[in-house]
């Protein structure tokens, strides 16, 4: 699996938010993405997941160039994204949120029926929540969960689709230290399984720990694209602070 972004532009009402973005990822690589607030990280990722439409440029996935990406297309390709705002349906229960848009249905003679296969969904949900170390009642309303618990529901939603490309926009923002570490271990694990991962975080330490490559964005442009081995954590810090005007 390869994904290449080339010459991508995006503006909101005449204001350029992304300018001439080029980068690529492939299976088994974790790409860390850092940058100040408002640098355009989330917007870039939303363009890849189809949540936002870009103005110019191409996203080439496994050799096929796309100038438009819809949520359905990205899903069918195997892209899953954990949004910074989590995208939960607050009044629905855990299981409904995990399977949003990818509900399992009962099959008869190899054909899908409109009916939900609740027991199968329950089984899969319990399994993925166990992996995330989250012990909640799956029939509970998600609005009643803590921030970190909600975050892991959003992560569970992405995992349940068995993505080939996993985009994580600040997945550890609401997590405690132990939960963060668990998640980072899992991210490494997913990488071993050959998933391509884009990981956004303001926690430089996390990014440095987990990434193979690190991209830095500033004001809608990519200003640095480095192999992790070519830079130390201290240097990374410096670049981030130094160029701050």
């Amino acid at each position: 699996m390869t994904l290449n972004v080339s010459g991508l532009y995006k503006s909101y009402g005449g204001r350029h938010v992304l300018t001439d973005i080029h980068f690529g990822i492939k299976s088994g690589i974790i790409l860390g993405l850092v940058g100040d607030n408002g640098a355009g990280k989330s917007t870039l990722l939303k363009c890849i997941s189809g949540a936002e439409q870009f103005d110019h440029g191409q996203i080439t996935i496994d050799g096929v160039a796309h100038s438009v990406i819809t949520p359905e297309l990205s899903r069918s390709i195997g892209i899953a994204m954990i949004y910074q705002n989590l995208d939960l349906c607050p009044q629905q229960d855990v299981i409904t949120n995990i399977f949003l848009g990818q509900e399992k249905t009962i099959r008869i003679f190899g054909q899908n029926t409109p009916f939900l296969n609740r027991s199968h969904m329950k089984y899969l949900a319990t399994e993925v929540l166990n992996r995330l170390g989250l012990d909640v009642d799956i029939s509970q309303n998600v609005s009643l969960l803590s921030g970190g618990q909600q975050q892991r529901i959003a992560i569970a939603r992405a995992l349940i689709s068995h993505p080939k490309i996993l985009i994580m926009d600040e997945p550890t923002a609401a997590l405690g230290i132990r939960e963060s570490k668990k998640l980072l271990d899992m991210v490494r694990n997913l990488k071993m399984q050959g998933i391509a991962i884009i990981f956004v975080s303001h926690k430089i330490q996390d990014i440095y720990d987990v990434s193979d490559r690190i991209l830095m964005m500033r004001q809608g442009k990519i200003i640095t694209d480095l192999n992790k081995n070519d830079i130390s954590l201290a240097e990374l810090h410096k670049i981030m602070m130094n160029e701050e005007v």
Partner: protein
Amino acid sequence: MPREAKISALVLIILCGLGGLCSDVFFTSANLVNILTASATIGILSIGASFVLAAKKLDLSIGSFMALTAIFGATFGHSGTGIIGLTLLCGVVTGLINGVMVGFLKLPSFIVTLAMLGLARGVALVISDGDPIYDLSPSVIYIGQGEIFGVPVPVILFALLAALCGLILNYTKFGIQTLCIGDNENACARAGIKITRHNMILFSLSALLSAVAGLIYMGRVNAADPAAGAGYELLAITAAIIGGTSIFGGKTSIFGTVCGALILSVIQNCLTLLNISAYYQEILIGLILIFAISLEKVKIYPRGMR
């Protein structure tokens, strides 16, 4: 099932008790059958309203659609099956028109269906020249007045549709996605749910149910009346809301809605038994709606609610 649905069931029981205290006639089987039959049209409309409200939309055109679909069926249908078929077909088509405007054109459902409320009524009046169409086929009359084992056909239709729609809401992908769309439409779109298609189906379902209500009404009075169903949208939405459906989307239950429709029917029945003018009934319905909505509004919303 939302807690509100259970509360409305309780309210219904209490109201029936009060009804019994007010009048000896209340618990006679004839009167109870009356209440059920009277609740069928509103009840069927309110089932559609529940789905639409659950998706955080509004369908104000259902009352007018009752008249339009019936007039259309009675004018162009030449046999019992013809009338019934055309009435239902007209329901699907008018619903799709709403669905296109809300789904494809992304217009607010409130405005679209408010426009349709006037437009559909106008078309019904134009087609019929303002006069009811009398002397319909026996099979249409059967839908409004027939009985199966002593149970009126409207009541049977209401029960069957409630069961079917309850099944759809709770056990199908469509039902669960309806609730999710009402809760967070953007998230659903990003999760790959086809919102446009969903809205088309939603408004078609609502209009199809109004066509069924239109059929029942037409059969009961043995006439397709261009004035039928005026103000019924208010009653149907009220029934859904007192049954625990949220006007903010994301929450409904068919059980609650059925209770809501029965509550309205019981109240109207009691007022009639007590010889209170129908004008006061309208005032009371308005007050009940305001009361039910304020109950929902004052409740502190859980965190995460937009």
